[in-house]
């Protein structure tokens, strides 16, 4: 052997030079290939960063909302002309007039119908409601005078957040020159401030961006997911247990298996068609209800839970089963007392991931009417409702800049829920996962 390598055989030397000559090229190809891979991974990671950066940079201002301090005189002549503090009268009084009077007192120089209307447009129509609530809670207020922070209109809010180009021509921006002047005066006087946006979390949908919140959508999502979980978890676990522990190996169980694998890959919108044709048209369940949404989503989530559940069951070693059977347990006792508790963390992990997916799902819910404009916060499983992702879809269609901001904020809330749920699944897996 040694002899061959050291011998100056012309053929050998020839091969060696050929190989050596090709080496730089091959190594360059190697480096290039490596770079392609690195670029691909970085592109993928860059997309993640870009998406989150884009959403967060658009959405975080929505967590603050602009308020204007207005001197309000609770004029008895307007609120309670009879003077008997009748709750009915207090309820129906013209509080908007108080707001208007307050605005006029701040800018006494403003005159003319158009000018005045522009001035009143600085505060949201929500102000009247706010005053009504205060008076109903505390009738003592009548006759008093108070400086009250009222919700500014969406345009003022957008201006304060710097999202309206002041240099634009007046006709091209939603807020007029005189309004900008007033806002600047108020700002100089410290009568404008940004407060934490509680409305976003406490109210339902609205046509006015500054009054729109995600509470209705959150409650809708909650009811929908509750139904989804209550249905899909027990059924999914039962199916996994049956297929893994009890089912005979025959054509029927093969069919079930193939079915489950295929259902996991059926487009979600097809489930929406199923919900529309079967639950709404055939069974006559109410449209737009979390009940129907939950039913559709549980059919979608079932395959996920079943597949995860079976994986968790197969990871329990057979020795456990044999030991249980050996001491005289019935098959069901063996499963219920030993196998299932050991497989439960894995099953829960799979279910949480399935639920997170259901939380982000919107296409099938469009089919069953959960896309309506609903102001009220749903209170039961059959109230018309929408869910968080569908609310995002609805808001994203609206042209106002203030809604873009709120849409991004709603997305942030949705993503936060997803992160919490997936984090929970990871913790569960880390904490309870056993290696046999």
């Amino acid at each position, binding site marked *: 052997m040694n002899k061959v390598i050291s011998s100056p055989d012309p053929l050998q030397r020839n091969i060696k030079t050929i190989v050596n000559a090709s080496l730089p090229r*091959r*190594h360059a*190809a*190697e480096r290039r*290939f*490596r770079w*392609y*891979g*690195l670029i*691909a*991974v970085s592109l*993928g*990671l860059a*997309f993640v960063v870009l*998406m989150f950066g*884009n*959403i967060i940079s658009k959405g975080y201002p929505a967590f603050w909302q602009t308020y204007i301090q207005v001197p309000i005189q609770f004029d008895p002549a307007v609120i309670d002309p009879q003077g008997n503090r009748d709750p009915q009268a207090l309820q129906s009084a013209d509080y908007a007039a108080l707001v208007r009077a307050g605005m006029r007192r701040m800018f006494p120089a403003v005159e003319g119908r158009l000018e005045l209307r522009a001035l009143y447009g600085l505060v949201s129509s929500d102000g009247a409601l706010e005053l009504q609530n205060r008076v109903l809670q505390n009738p003592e207020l009548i006759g008093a005078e108070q400086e009250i922070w009222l919700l500014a209109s969406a345009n003022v809010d957008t201006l304060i957040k710097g999202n309206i180009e002041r240099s634009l021509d007046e006709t091209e921006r939603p807020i007029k020159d005189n309004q900008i002047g007033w806002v600047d005066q108020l700002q100089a006087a410290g009568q404008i401030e940004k407060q934490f946006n509680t409305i976003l979390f406490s109210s339902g949908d609205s046509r006015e961006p500054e009054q729109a919140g995600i509470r209705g959508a959150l409650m809708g999502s909650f009811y929908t997911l509750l139904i989804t979980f209550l249905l899909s978890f027990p*059924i*999914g676990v*039962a*199916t996994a247990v*049956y297929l893994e522990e*009890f*089912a005979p190996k025959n054509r029927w169980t093969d*069919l*079930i298996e193939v*079915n489950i*694998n*295929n259902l996991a*890959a*059926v*487009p979600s*919108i*097809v*489930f929406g*068609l*199923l919900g*529309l*044709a*079967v639950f709404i*048209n055939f069974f006559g369940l109410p449209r737009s209800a979390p009940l129907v949404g939950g039913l559709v989503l549980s059919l979608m989530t*079932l395959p996920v839970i*079943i597949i995860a559940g079976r994986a968790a069951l197969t990871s329990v070693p057979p020795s456990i089963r044999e030991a249980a059977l050996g001491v005289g347990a*019935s098959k*069901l006792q063996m499963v219920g007392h030993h196998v299932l508790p050991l497989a439960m963390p894995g099953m829960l992990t799979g279910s949480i991931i399935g639920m*997170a997916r259901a939380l*982000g799902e*919107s*296409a099938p819910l*469009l*089919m069953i*009417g959960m*896309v309506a404009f609903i102001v009220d916060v749903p209170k039961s499983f059959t109230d018309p409702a929408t869910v968080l992702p569908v609310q*995002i*879809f609805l808001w*994203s269609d609206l042209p106002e800049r203030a809604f873009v901001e709120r849409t991004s904020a709603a*997305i942030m809330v*949705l*993503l936060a829920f*997803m992160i919490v749920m997936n984090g929970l699944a990871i913790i569960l897996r880390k904490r309870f996962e056993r290696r046999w």
Partner: protein
Amino acid sequence: MFIYLFLSLLLLSAGAYHLGRKRAFVVANGHIRKLHSLPSFYGSYTALWCFLPALIVFGLWITFQQGFIIDLVVAGMPPELRNLPPDQLNLVVNDLKNLVGGNFVSSAPNPAMLAAADHYRHLRTVGNAALWVTVLSLAILGVVHAWRAISPTLRARNRVERVVNVFLIASSTIAIFTTLGIVLSVVFESILFFQKVPISEFLFGLQWSPQTALRADQTGSSGAFGSVPLFAGTLLISGIAMVIAVPIGLMSALFLSEYATPKFRAVAKPALEVLAGIPTVVYGFFAALTVAPLIREIGTSMGLHVASESALAAGLVMGIMIIPFVSSLSDDVINAVPQSMRDGSYALGATKSETIKRVLLPAALPGIVGSILLAVSRAIGETMIVVMAAGLSANLTANPLEAVTTVTVQIVTLLTGDQEFDSPKTLAAFALGLMLFIVTLILNIIALQVVRKYREQYE
């Protein structure tokens, strides 16, 4: 209301469990080993007798209650209302329901309607009270029956286990019923559709404008149902998505499994999979508000005409969404290739990239094709991104800068809002759904088969 009844039923069953268990101890007379089953099985036996019959009656009752009450109310209406033709009677019944629910009604309520509404409310109260009584007494009867049946020789365990077994089998058939439900619902409506529109026109027609005319002489709304432009649009957008997702996903998978250090892999792999967890509505928002205007700006600065809802924007973002599918599926496939094949190639002096290109990829090819097929089926069925970022008008074009529409977009637009179930417009959505289901099903079956064959090859 119903929830309270259900909860009381649950509570009662919990009580029944304890009763049954105690009873077992009593009949055993202190010799528990004389019992056929463990005492807890006697408890479960009693609880099941309490819960199941009552639950079945409960379920049937709430399914049929409303229809029954409406029949009764209609029968009690004055004859001029009762003898209306069915469609008008339907309107009256709807008004009645709204009246009872305290909602707006289409016309001012007349005395007959008000009386009917009162009748309805009365019947409903009576019905609900009867429901409570029936369900709860059935539950108690069940407990009494079980209580009396309990004896040391009662094979309680076998009976309880039989019930559980039935529940397990019933659960496992739900997957079958779901598929059956999907097939039946889309096929049934599609057959109705194909009675109105010939199937050849639907499959091969080049025109899609589902607005049907309200009047015969109306112009511009002929109602053409040729689905070719929709499928062309779907293919265009999915094609763009695959052009983005396949190279990036595949190269990422190769890099992460062959080159990356374990540390980098541990960070980068989950970070990439975050993309799969983001809801599609977020991608849609991103596509419509960030990517589409950007592409338009770039295109216009290069002197191109770009539609504001270009196929490119939707396809691009969909591609980003698909990356993790391709990468994690191909990652599995690449890891399944035995190490001995790599070692053999290295021993012959091949570099890493040569091993990947000449050995790994050919060996993993079937699996990779399978995962790409799964990704394609995902892209075809994807809805929210295209609903938010792609157009509505059905253009038959291959230019990615123009607006196209897709099958899923059309299903959503045809079915959101008010619908009537006999118009071809609504039924067309189901026909499209059928096509979508068939296409994705075929892709999935082929893909799963290919992947399974491939796995077996190396096991």
